[in-house]
């Protein structure tokens, strides 16, 4: 990871702690492929650079952005995460990604499919605005069908209203 990326990471981490009004109360657990790493440059050994495992590790949770109920706008916190994703995709210029859009369980099934698509598209459009070719990005909505947080409470719903960027290996 270069210096700029680290700076962005720190800046967005600060932003996250400073204005976490809509962020989940607790950050989602890191993806299962990630091993906890202290801050600093990634180890020389580990996931293959440009792979989904490497991406997830490098993003440290910022492979996912979160939304308010029924909303799909990209707020400054999401922008910081997406900038970090874009930088990664610029560094590994041949990789492609799918953005998975999700909704919480407190809505009707069909609408949530459309809402998940709208959220994934919002994230995709922002990445495109940062210079990522649209040919490298596609979207899929899972509506409320694939929750990551399994409770029926506000904190779980906040974690489930999300768009997750996944590198296609």
């Amino acid at each position, binding site marked *: 990871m270069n210096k700029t990326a680290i700076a962005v990471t720190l800046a967005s981490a600060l932003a996250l702690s400073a204005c976490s009004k809509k962020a989940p109360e607790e950050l989602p657990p890191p993806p299962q492929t990630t091993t906890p790493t202290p801050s600093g440059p990634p180890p020389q050994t580990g996931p293959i650079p440009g792979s989904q495992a490497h991406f997830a590790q490098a993003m440290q949770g910022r492979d996912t952005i979160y939304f308010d109920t029924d909303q799909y706008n990209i707020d400054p916190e999401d922008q910081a995460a997406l900038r970090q994703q874009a930088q990664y995709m610029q560094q590994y210029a041949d990789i492609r990604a799918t953005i998975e859009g999700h909704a919480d369980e407190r809505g009707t099934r*069909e*609408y949530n499919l*459309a809402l998940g698509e709208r959220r994934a598209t919002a994230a995709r459009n922002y990445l495109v605005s940062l210079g990522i070719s649209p040919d490298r990005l596609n979207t899929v909505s899972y509506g409320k*069908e694939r*929750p990551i947080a399994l*409770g029926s409470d506000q904190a779980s719903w906040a974690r489930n209203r999300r768009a997750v960027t996944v590198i296609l290996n």
Partner: protein
Amino acid sequence: MNIRTLFLSVGLCVLAAPAFAQDAGQAPAGAQPVEVPNLEDEGLVGTVTDESAWQDLGIAIPAFATNSNQPTAANAQGTGALGLELGRVVYNDLRNNGLFRPVGPDALPRPAYPEITAPTWGAWQGRSAEMLVQGYVRANADGGLTVGCYLYDVQLQQELVREGWVVTAADWRRAAHKCADLVYSRLSGESPFFDSKIAYIAETGPKGNRVKRLAIMDSDGANHRFITNGQATALTPRYSPDYSKIVYLSYLNGYPRIFVYDIGTGRQTLVTESQNPTMAPRWSPDGKWILYSMATGGNTDIYRVSASGGGTSQRLTDTPGIDIGGSYSPDGSKIVFESDRSGSQQIYVMDADGGNQRRISFFGGRAATPEWSPRGDQIAFTHIAGDLRVAVMSPSGGGMRYLTNNWQDEAPTWAPNGRIVQFFRTAPNSGETSIWQVDLTGRNERRLNTPVGASDPAWGPVLP
């Protein structure tokens, strides 16, 4: 009247009827009516003006008789045992739907074959039965069955209606449903609904990794069958009006797309070749059109396409936001649908070609998944205000009324006669789903028996 002769004449009529073609395919076989109902007596219909009046009728439903116990593919113990099962199906149809005050064959003496057309009035009057349903079953030489169904007014000592059907052994339950429909229609003045099927999504596995399969069953939960194997998530099925196809959403190739599944051949085709996600499929009442919703650049609109395939899709909505779903009025002239163009999910009506779009839901909260009653007089929908509840309103948006009150009830579907609504209920935390039904009065709420979790019920029309 010579009862024996009457009975024999019925029997002759039955034998003279052409045998129903035994379709090797999966398409549902039609039960062949072999006798027109006796319309001589119109007395009772004229008196049934109040629902509560007919609901209180005590109906005795003893086991069906058989002329002689014959082997049949429908029951390992022969037509005698099958007669008991027929009575039970009729009884359970009425009882489970909160109709009348039925007493079933397990609590009643079994009439002998000659009594079917000559009830022993005194015995039934002594049981305070106001109505009596008797029937018979006979094995036919071709392996099929002939089932007769008779409804009597015990007080008047009079036959009200009778009908008979020739069915394949595999379809024996349909004859019982037809009998229950006959009784229900004659006494309530309502249209029949028991002889119908339901498509739904069978759900298994934990909330975080749920398997969702397309499945079908009869209206009473019998003849259950999984259609898909669960490798691809399946959602939101709808039976075609003739039951030959099911349109539904599948993640077959990793992305949500609407497929038209042919029940007879098992083949399925994409509703449109577009690369965009497609959702929320619906049939027109005449089966000629399929509605679907498609997202383009995050914006979802409703389209219609000819159900015969190969045609060009026509876009019906074009506002920014999510326009989704859609349900035709019974005459096919209008479509009720859902849109968040005002900022939140609300219900709108448009002409079938997309014209004259106007919002009809103005009662606070959000309103989703509208379904037009087959009678045309009501729209069922999901009301969202914290909890999700099933409600109904008139097609102009008036008279909004809740039918359920639970944590999460959604996606109503109508019984073919528009008197009962099914929906699915999700439990908090576990996310377990189940199909329930409730009648239009909000009473008689009950859970349907399904082998596993169940969601997205879609009730089809009465079988021919």
